[in-house]
């Protein structure tokens, strides 16, 4: 009970902070918008050839961009924590009688709140670019929830990395190191079938492909065994949380 109210205070603090650093808000929204525009107009024509069925590229691309946005949010979790560590804010929190997990939960939940905003914006821009859902708004809402949960789980991966590396600038570079391969070696931008065999094995089985395919299934339909992607994504989410929540809380305790 106490822990929940502690967490609520930290969420409040982080959300204020997120919205009061205009640069952060601008770049964290501009970045995925630019990716969306770039890939849609630059690669759209070339990639459509490989996209199965008659799916418009924007309909193929947007689910991928949503997952990418959620992952980029996890890098922000790393950076935010590393900054708080360096500024001594975490020491202040640690000297207070509050629940050990509150600072981390407050961070990951606030970053999820930012994801709500950024992902809504992405869907809006997607609609402007011609995105359409074939499966109804309810399924779009499920997609929204799924990608948010996905982002929340990866936010704990980001927390773990932030607490391990501790230096904000290094954390940022490290973030791209683990996020880019996950995003590019997946079905985010192009169909996996166009990749070399060994990479296909990785790409097909990693979590980003699962969530992207799940959202494609939910918004476009027509994917064989589509709902299995939803279950596998949920399993990934649970698995990632089960591993990274304890690790990051442990790291936090022994800072």
């Amino acid at each position: 009970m106490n822990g929940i109210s502690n967490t609520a205070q930290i969420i409040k603090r982080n959300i204020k902070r997120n919205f009061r650093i205009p640069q952060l808000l601008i770049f964290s929204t501009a970045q995925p918008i630019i990716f969306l525009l770039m890939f849609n107009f630059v690669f759209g024509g070339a990639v459509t050839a490989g996209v199965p069925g008659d799916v418009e590229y924007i309909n193929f691309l947007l689910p991928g961009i949503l997952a990418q946005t959620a992952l980029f949010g996890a890098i922000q979790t790393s950076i935010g924590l590393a900054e708080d560590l360096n500024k001594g804010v975490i020491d202040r929190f640690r000297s207070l009688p509050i629940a050990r997990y509150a600072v981390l939960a407050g961070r990951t939940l606030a970053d999820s709140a930012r994801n709500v905003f950024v992902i809504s914006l992405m869907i809006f821009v997607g609609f402007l670019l011609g995105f359409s859902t074939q499966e109804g708004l309810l399924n779009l809402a499920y997609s929204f929830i799924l990608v948010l949960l996905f982002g929340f789980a990866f936010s704990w991966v980001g927390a773990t990395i932030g607490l391990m590396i501790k230096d904000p600038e290094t954390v940022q570079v490290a973030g791209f190191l683990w996020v880019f391969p996950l995003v590019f070696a997946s079905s985010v931008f192009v169909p996996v079938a166009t990749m070399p065999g060994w990479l296909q094995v990785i790409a097909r089985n990693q979590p980003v492909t699962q969530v992207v395919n799940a959202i494609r299934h939910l918004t476009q339909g027509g994917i064989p065994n589509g709902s299995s992607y939803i279950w596998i994504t949920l399993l990934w989410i649970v698995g990632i949380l089960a591993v990274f929540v304890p690790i990051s809380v442990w790291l936090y305790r022994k800072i």
Partner: protein
Amino acid sequence: MKNHKSLIVNNVCKRFGDFTALDGVSLEAKKGKVTGLLGPNGAGKTTLINIMTTLLKPDTGSVTVEGINVLKNPSETRKQIGLAGQYAAVDEYLTGRETLIMVGRLYGLSAGLAKKRAQELLERLDLTTAADKQAKTYSGGMRRRLDLGASLVATPKVLFLDEPTTGLDPRTRLQLWDTIRDLVDQGVTILLTTQYLEEADALCDFIYVIDKGKMIIEGTAGELKNSLGEDIIELKVKTSKLEEVEKILKKSINKQPELDKPTRSIKIRTKTGSDDLLKVAEALKHSKIIPDELSLHRPTLDDVFLSVTGNRQDNDERH
């Protein structure tokens, strides 16, 4: 109260890999007093503060705050202490008021109480005009005061101040000293680290000097100064008169003066300062020589600090 010690540190050791940060450190802080922890950079001051405030676990040793075993019961300890750190850990993007309210809420105060307490502290720390501005606009002194405010929200019994005035201009430093004295008047026990000896002299009732992870000397400021043993008579005369004056002094008090030509000064170390000073003055008057300056002073804490931290290595080699 069976004793009046708010804080007891006993034989604490802490190693980081091969580096021994603290090597069997002990100290005590009396209730309602200011205890100073002095030492050069890297002496182990912040490590010790972190251990006393539950941020770090020592390898061996024990720490007790207000009768609570800090190592066994960190969460109880955190309810009794306040910590203002070295770099003024303020949230740049929150206003001063928001920070204080947040900290109050984190201590479990109701929303109303947290607001009231924040207002009290803002008034007390002279931050009311900037209360609703983001802390990134604050000056160094305002940040320190806000950081101090955050550590005072839950009216701690023991307050740890890690170099509270480092980097502040003299006026702001004096203001902060006043605030610290007010807190002491209210019965708060304070442990402060500092690199400024005049700060320790002005504020601390008892001083520990730490160097390379070991306590090397402890006592009141007066005791530390007396530990050097001798007072110093210092006078300045015209260069042409230096040698004449040296002779006169030697004769009048029968001690060998130290001559320093570049600064035109003559120093005499003495255990009977006032007595010798009168003799010196009389002899000079008799010879019709008027010195530009004539003073008797006790060794400053700087003298003590330099002599103990500078000589330590020699002592080690001797043992």
